[in-house]
């Protein structure tokens, strides 16, 4: 657990967007289009033991979360990217499971959007 494993809040996203809720929701929509697909691709790459693809997709997932500020999902994606970079194949399944849990926690918050 890191200090980032706290309940997700919208503060950083709203600060980035200067309070524009609509702009934040555009970013959420974009993430919802890309994020689940990246998770699926990471899962397949781990099955195929393709560390390079794991690293690349985890990097993209981390990037797609960057405007939502600190989150456990972004942290797990960064850790998985590092594991991929170091070709630590044995550590990938457990880190991937942590990433999926963090994504499952995060997505309902994102769908709801920032408070009105």
């Amino acid at each position: 657990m890191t200090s980032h494993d706290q309940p997700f809040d919208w503060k950083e996203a709203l600060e980035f967007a200067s309070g524009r809720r609509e702009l934040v929701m555009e970013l959420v929509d974009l993430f919802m289009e890309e994020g689940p697909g990246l998770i699926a691709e990471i899962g397949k790459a781990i099955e195929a033991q393709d560390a390079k693809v794991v690293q690349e997709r985890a990097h993209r997932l981390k990037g797609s979360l960057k405007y939502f500020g600190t989150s456990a999902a972004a942290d797990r994606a960064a850790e998985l990217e590092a594991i991929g970079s170091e070709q630590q194949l044995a550590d990938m399944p457990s880190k991937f499971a942590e990433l999926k849990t963090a994504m499952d926690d995060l997505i309902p918050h994102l769908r709801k959007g920032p408070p009105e």
Partner: protein
Amino acid sequence: MILMDAMREGTTMVATEQLTTILMADDDPDDRLLTQQAFREQRLANELRFVEDGEQLIDYLKQQGQYADPSISPRPGLILLDWNMPKKNGREVLAEIKVDPQLKRIPVVVLSTSNAEMDIRHAYDLGANAFISKPVTFEGLAAIVKTLGEHWFGIVELPS
């Protein structure tokens, strides 16, 4: 959602033939969306087109593959270039552009999350016309877009 649809199609909603086309190369869909939004907010009416990696950028500029038809993929008068991209990165494509007699006069503005002196020097050594660190707020991005518009389309003369 209209904005996102327009972005996916690779063009802004406001397309004016006589205005210089701007081509942005960036693999990050968030950054493409935000740049498009900043153009709208600043009412910059130039056509903004997108490619997603260095190979696509070179194909576009050389009118190859899916970009072979110049009536569909007009030559840009300004390139916004992400420094870190897959396939061919910003360094590689900038070097390629600036040694090509057909392309070297197109101004290239490098956009990067880095502000490392090494990257800045490298970009200018390769012929970049400006190096801008990506801002950390949308307002910062909108201010950059406003300044780019004033500079490149209000002050300087561009080659035809």
